[in-house]
């Protein structure tokens, strides 16, 4: 069996890729996709822990994370459509995420 650490490191890598994506991209939809990538990395961590601990709780958590991701997708895309209607773009130029 592949060791737990391989899974943890893989999900850490995916999580960091997602984080970098959120901080560098300007397109709201791409940012949202990067968040989904982060959530998937977390899900992988949960399932790996769950399997190696022999405890189902982690997989239930993943189940809920997926539901939440679906809800966020619905609401977030609706917000993007509303934004697009008024501005004709979804570049987050004024949505400067690193503003102090």
């Amino acid at each position, binding site marked *: 069996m592949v060791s737990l650490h391989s899974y943890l490191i893989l999900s850490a890598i995916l999580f960091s890729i997602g984080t970098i994506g959120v901080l560098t991209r300007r397109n709201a939809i791409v940012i949202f996709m990067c*968040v989904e990538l982060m959530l998937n990395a977390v899900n992988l961590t949960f399932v790996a822990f769950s399997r190696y601990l022999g*405890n189902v709780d982690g997989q239930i958590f993943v189940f809920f994370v997926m539901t939440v991701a679906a809800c*966020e997708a619905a609401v977030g895309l609706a917000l993007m459509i509303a934004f697009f209607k008024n501005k004709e773009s979804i570049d987050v130029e004024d949505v400067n995420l690193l503003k102090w």
Partner: protein
Amino acid sequence: METIAMPAINFAAIMPETILSVIAMALLLINVFVPSEQKAYLGYLSLIGIVVTFFTVIGGWGTPQEGFNGSVMQDNFALFFKGIFLVSAALSILISDQYMKREECNHGELYPLILLATCGMMLMASGTDLMTIFLGLELLSVSLYVLAGFQRDSLKSNEAGLKYFLLGAFSTGFLLYGMALIYGATGTTRIAAIASYVAQNSLAGSNLMLLIGMVLMAVGFSFKIAAAPFHMWTPDVYEGAPTPMTAFMSVGPKAAGFAAFVRVFVIALPTLRADWADLLWVLAVLTMTVGNITALYQKNIKRMLAYSSIAHAGYVLVGFVAGNAVGTAGIMFYMLSYAFMNIGAFAIIVLVGKKGEPNNNVEDYAGFGFKHPLLAVCMSIFLFSLAGIPPAAGFIGKFYLFSGAIQAGYIWLAIIGVLNSAASVYYYLRVMVFMYMKDPVEEFDWLKVSPAIALCLIIAVAGVLIPGIVPGYLLELAQKAVLL
């Protein structure tokens, strides 16, 4: 085929949540039959629901109820916070109708969404399982994304909703990663079980997975309570969102974030106290200082109050770092009085604003004190309380937060807090200087006080002054609700 043994459900533990969600669903149905100029009735119905829920909260006081195999626990701590959420929801609903009519977006869905957000906050306060807390948080956040973007024809509101959504989802990732690592280190998501497992196997000092999980969770919660350096979303979102919703989200979700933050850290990770107290010390100092210094330069009053709300999160973090009974009771007392004073101030902003809110700058308040003396006095009371000047409730709250820190030996933290609090007086008083010492630039003839807003102002003034002058009763309640 065997049957599944149902868990011990115990509805008493989720009574307030049940009532609120049932009313929210009923309102969604009723909404269809209410013509658009009479949506205020939905607001009144939801207020009735909130009052009923408030009575169940009072009725549950002193009898802790556990339910759903330990997923939820309604103790005094949870009940006190539920009271705060209900107060903030009720006051925000009172100021919503006039604003939404003015901005021509009085859709009836507003009230069910506020109620469901409140329901989410309650689940955060009473959840004793990381899953319950997470889902409560998401119920709250998803409702708030919608409420922030509620004025769908206004670009500002859309932007606020979108920004809040992107950063909220981003922070959820960190929170979840933290939860995942804590689950890996302990093999459970129940808060009490985490604590006992960590204590039994003495994982505290040695386990790096637990430590990094704790740090990541702190990052996630800091986003939600808008602590620096994770506060970037706050000013833009607060400025763009509809004003009543800004009032709501500056109080309720912050209190809910603190409730979950305190419960997870104090109950589940007491053995890591030394580590997280250091972390939160730094966060508290940063939050207070960044919030107050940037607030000094703000022209827009909603933006100023956003930065001031960041600073207030910093003061509350001081009480959290202290971690003793006085500090924790201070957190609860402060959040309650903050609900009154902040929503009160936002009620005045709603009144002064015009359609599209072109006049939200501090300069636009010039001469307000002479044209509407009574409202100006109310505003002054709220600002005094926010600045922490006696006899307002804000002073007593700050006093307890800082004296908790001194008792716990964090003298420097308390000194930094007091200095910050002194600096904050400048920007609150600036508004009052404009109100009383400048001549009006334009007339305030558009301003009309609806009965609902008048009621909100009366409640808020009472809520600021009464605990400020006779704080004994409320403090006693807060002390009974402390988790320790």
